């Protein structure tokens, strides 16, 4: 009887400690790690939209670039105005791809040639470095401009160890303001992971005019 009472007291103490701690622990696990890996949002500073995949060892994010941003960037790197405009009107996004595993985790690989853009009832590939190289060859772009362009784009194929990542631009070959779905994939430790961004919007070609404060 004495032993039974002692055991009951022990269990009560155990529950008094364990239950609040487990509740605290569960509350600290962010929703992103257990929910849908796809997020969509707006960058507060710029108002530009982003689409993001965060899960299964990878962080992949597309952030809109206004055509004027792209024109200015490349005209400062040897592009003429016509070539910069041609590029800017091909739906350019700032892109991040990262292996989010901790040290000792899995290797991650992607191949942009395996991704598909769905727009207006058709399916097409991304405009990769190699495809742009042919375009610039035909348009006679200078070597300095081509160097800047090539290294500004996300690599067509890449293999990341844990904590590795790249930033770079991606181009989807669509008019400003177009909408598309993107089917993407990557390999992680030999397993293929597939994802889809729906309703991605190519940034519109807007030209804000100065406000007349006298009115």
């Amino acid at each position, binding site marked *: 009887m004495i032993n039974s009472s002692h055991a009951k*007291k*022990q269990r009560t*103490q*155990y529950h008094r*400690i*364990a239950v609040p*701690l*487990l509740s605290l*622990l569960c509350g*600290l*696990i*962010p929703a992103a*790690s257990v929910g849908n890996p796809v997020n969509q949002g707006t960058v507060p500073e710029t108002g530009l939209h982003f689409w993001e995949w965060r899960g299964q060892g990878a*962080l992949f994010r597309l952030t809109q670039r206004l055509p004027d941003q792209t024109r200015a*960037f490349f005209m400062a*790197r040897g592009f003429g105005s016509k070539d910069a405009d041609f590029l800017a009107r091909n739906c350019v996004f700032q892109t991040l791809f*990262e292996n*989010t*595993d*901790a*040290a*000792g985790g899995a*290797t991650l690989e992607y191949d942009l040639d395996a991704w598909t853009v769905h727009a207006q009832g058709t399916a097409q590939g991304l405009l990769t470095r190699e495809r742009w190289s042919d375009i610039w060859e035909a348009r006679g772009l200078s*070597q*300095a401009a081509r*160097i*800047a362009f*090539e*290294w*500004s784009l*996300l*690599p067509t*194929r*890449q*293999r*990341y*160890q*844990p*904590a*590795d*990542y*790249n*930033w*770079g631009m991606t181009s989807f070959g669509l008019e400003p303001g177009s909408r598309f779905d993107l089917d993407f994939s990557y390999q992680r430790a030999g397993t293929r992971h597939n994802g889809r961004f729906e309703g991605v919007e190519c940034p519109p070609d807007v030209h804000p005019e100065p406000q007349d404060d006298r009115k």
Partner: protein
Amino acid sequence: MTANKAQTLLFSLLLMIFTITRSIASGDSPATLHAVADRPMAPEFALADIDGVIHRLSDYRGQVVIVNFWATWCPPCREEMPSMQRAWEQIQDEAMVILAIDVGEDADTIFTFTADYPVEFPLLLDLDSRVIQEWPVRGLPTTFIVDPQGRIAYRAIGTRDWEDPALLDTLRKLHNGQVETPPATSNELPD
């Protein structure tokens, strides 16, 4: 088992789960250098810095060389420059050197950049991108650690915290010949 022992065990278990969970959830990763399998010889180069001084990789044989490929327009490249400078301040007297190779930009552009990001280690100019094309690089920034024998020992894609004590300790061990066999996380370089 006494009540005290049970409580201690429970606390330890919960603390361990909490630590692991927070680590995974936050996405934190330690500064990681990835050992390169078979340590291939690093491609030789001879490039001018922004003052016109020629630097050959082979001039630095016997030292650990951090070879960083970057450009001023690349946000993560800019982000890691201050940490590289602070690392440089710690290692420059230890037979270790940083060579940061800018891809495709001229001296004036880099000179302007250094007004905002002052660095003291050599900034080299790969004006026609010939050197980067000989190295196994696909995107910027990419950094290689060349061992005293002129072989590529480690690689990092993206930024790192270069003043991280664990990372600097890895470089010191490499310099002292204490890292001979690449660990199990070694990887092959891309074509």
